[in-house]
């Protein structure tokens, strides 16, 4: 009998509990055809596969809006909650569950308008999670109302003669919030950059805020088509500590700027570029920012005896 030496065997057998990309997919996504969310969904599922995230240990929390349907299309745990409130829920999930991988899916109305207060504080809490802002600059599900990121003059059903207030720049805003630790921008139509950004965000020890410029072919075709088609519309922020692309992917960009993501002041300056072009890449990263989820986990696992003891000590103060 020939003994079989596994060391010589070159065939990679699927390990017990290996997850394929299909293991993360749930029902067929019901976004409009051509919507940027489809590519993001695929990219996120790919990240889950690459990282081999156990589906039962992964939670997608969303608010309300087109993008917030996202958790329904993942075969993980999901929380499709209230408009604007994904961050408080996700923070509550993560606070005392360090074992869970938490993702937040939010939109421009969800994050930058109705949930803006939570945006400021969610960033400040800096719990380890990935926050994906699907920014299509319009309210889609409610059928074309001006969003806080709609370019000035956007024609919508609430502003048929064009919006009258300049939009919020979510990157610049986020870079102004206390304890910010990771801010990146990417686009839905360049998978290589999207994938690399998601991977970088997932590896970040804190809250990774990623704004994804997302196409809405139904309501915002005129806004996105030029950006998608014009090779001059994008500027790649390049740095060895940033989102690293291979040479082939890099060669598709006409404008490349060097930007050191440890430089917060420069990051804020870069965020201003949005007036002429769309800068994509890692604006800022600080791996040492204070993390509130670490505080949340600091006293896990106290025994019931200890807990009763502490309460009785306090009760003694009231004893007569």
């Amino acid at each position: 009998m020939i003994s079989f030496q596994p060391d010589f065997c070159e065939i990679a057998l699927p390990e017990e509990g290996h997850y394929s990309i299909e293991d993360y997919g749930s029902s067929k996504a019901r976004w409009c055809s051509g919507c940027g969310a489809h590519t993001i969904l695929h990219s996120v599922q790919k990240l889950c596969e690459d990282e081999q995230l156990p589906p039962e240990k992964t939670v997608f929390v969303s608010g309300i809006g087109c993008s917030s349907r996202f958790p329904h299309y993942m075969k993980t745990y999901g929380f499709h909650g209230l408009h604007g409130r994904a961050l408080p829920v996700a923070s509550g999930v993560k606070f005392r569950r360090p074992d869970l991988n938490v993702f937040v899916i939010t939109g421009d109305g969800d994050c930058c308008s109705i949930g803006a207060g939570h945006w400021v504080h969610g960033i400040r809490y800096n719990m380890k999670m990935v926050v994906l802002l699907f920014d299509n600059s319009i309210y889609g599900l409610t059928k074309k109302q001006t969003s806080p990121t709609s370019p000035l003059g956007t024609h919508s059903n609430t502003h048929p003669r064009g919006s009258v207030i300049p939009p919020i720049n979510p990157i610049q805003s986020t870079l102004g919030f206390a304890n910010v630790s990771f801010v990146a921008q990417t686009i839905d139509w360049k998978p290589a950059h999207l994938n690399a950004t998601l991977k970088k965000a997932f590896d970040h020890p804190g809250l990774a805020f990623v704004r994804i410029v997302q196409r809405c072919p139904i309501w915002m075709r005129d806004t996105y088509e030029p950006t998608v088609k014009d090779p001059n519309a994008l500027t790649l922020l390049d740095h060895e500590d940033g989102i690293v692309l291979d040479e082939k992917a890099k060669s598709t960009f006409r404008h490349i700027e060097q930007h050191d993501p440890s430089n917060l002041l420069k990051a804020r300056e870069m965020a201003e570029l949005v007036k002429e072009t769309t800068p994509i890449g890692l604006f800022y990263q600080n791996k040492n920012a204070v993390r509130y989820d670490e505080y949340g986990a600091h006293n896990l696992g106290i025994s019931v005896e200890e807990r009763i003891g502490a309460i009785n000590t306090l009760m003694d103060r009231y004893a007569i």
Partner: protein
Amino acid sequence: MISNPASQPSETNRFERTKIKEAVIEIVSDSGEGAQKCGQSLGAISAKMGNGVWTVEIIPAEIQPPARSKAGASGIRVRMGSNKITNMGDHADLVVALNEQVLYGRIDQNAYKPGTYLLIENKWATHTEETAIAYKESIEHFKELGYNIFEIPMEKECLKHVSDAKKGKNMWVLGLLCNLYDRDLEIAANQVKYIFRKKDEKIIQSNLELLYAGYEYANDNFPMHFTIPSKLSEEDYVVMNGNEAISLGVMAAGIEVCSMYPITPATSATHAMAETIESAGGIIHQAEDEIAAIGFAVGASYAGKTAVTITSGPGIALKTEFIGLAIMAEIPLVIIDVQRGGPSTGLPTKVEQGDLLAVLYGAPGDAPKVVLAPSTIEECFHFVILARKLAESFRTPVFVLTDANLATGVQPFPRPKIKAEWFPEPLDQSPWKEGVKVYDWDKHTGISKRPIPGQKGGMYTLTGLAHDEDSHVAYDPAINQRAVESRSRKLAALRETLKPPTIHGDEEGDLLLVGWGSTRGAIEEAAERAKEKGAKVSSIHLRFLSPMEPGLKNIFDKFKKVMTVEINYSDTVGNPLITVENRRYSQLAWYLRAQTLTDIDCLSNVYGQPMSPIQILQRLEKELNLTLID
């Protein structure tokens, strides 16, 4: 080494003391003069002596309201007696006032009666000309009101012992009151030491000196000295206010996340647990707003951690959308509402039971809620534990409604023995049973078991949208009907486990009083006093408001008239435009009328004050055409 320890007064019992069953004492002052500390100490000393005690704080809305003003009255009422005390009582027997102006706010609230002893700081008589005139006019006015006035050089006496009388006058007053009411001086001294335990020895000694000096002063300068017999119980007792009881309840319920946003009068519950909760396995999260506070708690609970959020009326208004989500998606959660006066910002520091209907119905669509209302300080503790159990068993939010009266009222009660079974079991991370749906609504009870993130095979997406048993978004008419029915059925299932309320008094009669929450003591005392005068009055007190305790209709049918007693608004028939037809009822009355088809009347007001027995007796006199008040 203590160089100069304060020495106790030597002679203490050279006069006859009048034996009394109880006394109501108030201390009122400008904010920051320590009146509350003085009264709380008197309450604690009396409780330690075995007396029944109830204290109520008198709190201005501002931290530093103008000095010597009617609106700035800050202080405390202490009612103590030989037996158990359950409410603030009627009129004060004795009031210590550190200036005359603050008394006016209390006089407006009918806090005193002819014959009430008024012990007043007399330094104002020789203050600025303007103040002296105001003081003298007030003293004249108080005489006309029939108060028994003692003008006392409090500041002058204190200055014999300390350089700044503002600090410490309260301890001098405490000493004085300890003598007038025969309080045990050693217990009092220990209480003073306890209050200043974090200060250095010099401060402790100077406060003890003031305590003894006040005690000494009362030996010679008053004709009245009382004693309130008491019996020390064998059982261990604790003495605390309702918010402190809530805070201990939160920890004893094994709560792992207490998520809140500062709001009066709820926040002191969080203060009371802040130092201990982390050793007790929990953490307080102070959120960025009321909405985030409940959102965070909902997220934590979804992830399998026991969670509570504590707020007051305006916070409930903001949390309403999340409350609806928690009911829709069946997320266990304890929501504590320490009610205050409303609507809007209302009366932040005052008492009202105005949130009942908002809590019951304050969400779009059909959102069946479990609502409990503790009626004593002791119940504030136990109901949090009960609420957590119910929240998990029935997979739904559970409300605990208290109010500013319970929150700040202090009462002794038997010390609870913390049980290991009150704490949550370790997080269930065992694989989800194959084939079991996320909302496997039981046909009879509506109850289903929930998967918790980390459980293999239990993955689902929770949603606030209409959903089927798999938590899939579903707009199918039959599915929605079934889902709404199932959530409602849980209330019926819980109701099956409840007992009818106990009737306080006879099972039949002329009038039944129905109350909920903090009014219990006042209602039961009024009913007892009325009964002593021959009135056929009984009372019941509801602690489950949703689902309702069973058997109410049967109880109501045995009385000629049923009337709720509540601290919230109702129209008075006979006022302009108000008729029997258009009258708006108080909240429990409205709800009970709908639930039992009984013609239920109500006694209610929004003075922002705890209900006193005499207010109830006055109404009973009219209803029953009897003289019930001496």
